[in-house]
């Protein structure tokens, strides 16, 4: 869906984005993570045609449209971190104005406005002045506005910044909902726990460079050298340790009184075979789970502990 190739942005001698290459497949909910000044917003602004790149290219879908062209703009829905409002403009008129800016007909805008306001749970606010909405409502309205022209790619720059916990949850649910509808979404956020719950893939940026990108589990696995699995043993501990040691691709990380922690790099089928083999060899297991790595720890590890 989104192909970024060797993207670089310089501000004089300062390089905000350095040789960034990235591919985000269609239907992904991609999270852009990085400390302040990492280059996330710059990258997003270049993709949206709000900033000219010093070098490199951005492509969406199969088109060769240039960044900033009408064709490209039609494929992107952009939600900035701050929602600016016009005094004396109703929600319906706000949607109508932006629909018109995409060259849509008024009757189509009216129909889509109803659907989208329902989607973002603002149906009852259609005739309300935009500046009277709460920040969370404004942000959801902004998402509805960005979806009006049915873009293939939705880009949100820190959509939850400044929102209260309830509004954050609502925004998260809305984005999950859009993801389930098959929309490709790119989110830049500082709230890592939220991203780890929503996103299926992430890109971690630091000092203008993309450190890593891909599925969260894959990155975790890469970094830890495998999946970390906790096996709780009631009896037959010696047997269990022996069996594990015999297995290729499995490394024992720690052995406690009733628990063995292993690092396993193989497929899920292999781990179930290993468990089955243990049970056949009189090892009594009381528990077995895979440790979920946190995005926070991953982020700190990759960015060298840079504070967000």
């Amino acid at each position: 869906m989104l192909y970024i190739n060797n993207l670089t942005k310089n501000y004089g001698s300062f390089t905000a984005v350095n040789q960034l290459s990235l591919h985000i497949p269609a239907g992904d909910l991609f999270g852009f993570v990085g400390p302040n000044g990492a280059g996330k917003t710059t990258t997003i602004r270049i993709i949206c045609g709000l900033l000219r790149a010093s070098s490199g290219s951005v492509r969406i879908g199969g088109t060769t449209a240039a960044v900033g062209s009408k064709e490209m703009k039609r494929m992107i829905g952009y939600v900035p971190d701050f929602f600016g409002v016009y005094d004396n403009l109703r929600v319906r008129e706000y949607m109508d104005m932006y629909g018109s800016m995409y060259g849509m007909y008024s009757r189509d805008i009216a129909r889509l406005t109803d659907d989208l306001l329902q989607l973002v749970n603002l149906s009852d606010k259609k005739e309300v002045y935009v500046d009277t909405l709460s920040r969370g409502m404004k942000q959801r309205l902004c998402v509805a506005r960005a979806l009006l022209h049915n873009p293939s790619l939705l880009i949100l720059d820190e959509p939850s910044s400044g929102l209260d916990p309830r509004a954050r949850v609502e925004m998260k649910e809305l984005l999950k909902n859009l993801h389930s509808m098959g929309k490709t979404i790119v989110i830049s956020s500082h709230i890592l726990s939220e991203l780890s719950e929503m996103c299926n893939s992430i890109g971690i940026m630091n000092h203008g460079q993309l450190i890593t990108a891909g599925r969260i589990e894959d990155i975790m696995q890469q970094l830890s050298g495998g999946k970390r699995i906790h096996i709780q043993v009631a009896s037959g501990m010696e047997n269990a340790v022996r069996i594990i040691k015999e297995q290729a691709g499995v490394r024992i990380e720690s052995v406690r009184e009733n628990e063995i922690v292993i690092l396993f790099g193989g497929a899920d089928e292999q781990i179930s075979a290993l468990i089955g083999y243990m049970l056949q060899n009189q090892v009594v297991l009381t528990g077995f789970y895979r440790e979920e790595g946190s995005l926070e720890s991953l982020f700190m590890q990759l960015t060298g502990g840079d504070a967000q």
Partner: protein
Amino acid sequence: MRLKWNPIVKKDLQVTARSMRLSWGLFAYEAVLTMTFLMALSMIQRAGSSYYSTSNVYSRLIYLFPALCVAQVCIVALIVPIITASAISGEKERQTFDIMLTTCMSPFSIVLGKVMSAVLRILFFVAAGMPIMALAFVVGGLSWSYLLYFVLTIILLSLLSGSIGILCSALCRRSITAVILSYAFYFVVYILTFFPMVIRLFITQGDNGGESLLFLLFNPIIFYEEFFMQLMSGESLFGGEAFRFSLDEVGFVTYHLAHGKVWMFVSAGCIFLLSVLLLLAAAWKVNPMHSSSGRKRKKG
């Protein structure tokens, strides 16, 4: 064919129409026009009330029209930059401009929409001032077509003032800076266009202005002076009986333009061209793809 409103014009008019500022603006505009009318009327009556005066006071009432027109021109020239100088910078301050740029509207459509909404707002004022303007017509001697010509010149002036305002708005991040810069730009258009002529007259010790007068084609003051001279006396400023300028004094082009009575139309064309150039410059400035490096935002 489907005729579509520029969405920015529609939005701006919607927002303005609901604002109290429009009501207060109209009130102030009407008040200034009424005061101008009363002052002009009083001056005309005083001038014609001399015991020995042979002229009829009614024949002088014809001058109410240019007096009201000049008042309107001054108001328009003063308020349009205030409206347009905050047009782009105001969107930037509200942080709505980025969203606008991500839509399918071209930067030129955006700046044109902003200027057109300013021109339309000025036309609200002009329309509201019509009843007072109509008082100048009750004594006769003036054609109603003059009013139409005047409205056309107001549109032209609004376009020029709006283009100056919008360019300054595109150049500045803050509305107040844009307003100040607009008035500085006014100084260039209204005053500095006299400078080549002044320098030439100084060099030739007052003998002739030559082709330096061509700079005045861009000057709205001279345009309106020519407009009222043509309207009231049918003569041209540089080619009329009153001044009897020679070819050497005003230069070849001005002499022929004035004698052909097309100076005003050429001046209108020049002002229009200048407005379009200013709009193109504003569109170029707001287009992020033309900005050389942009400004680094503080966020990630």
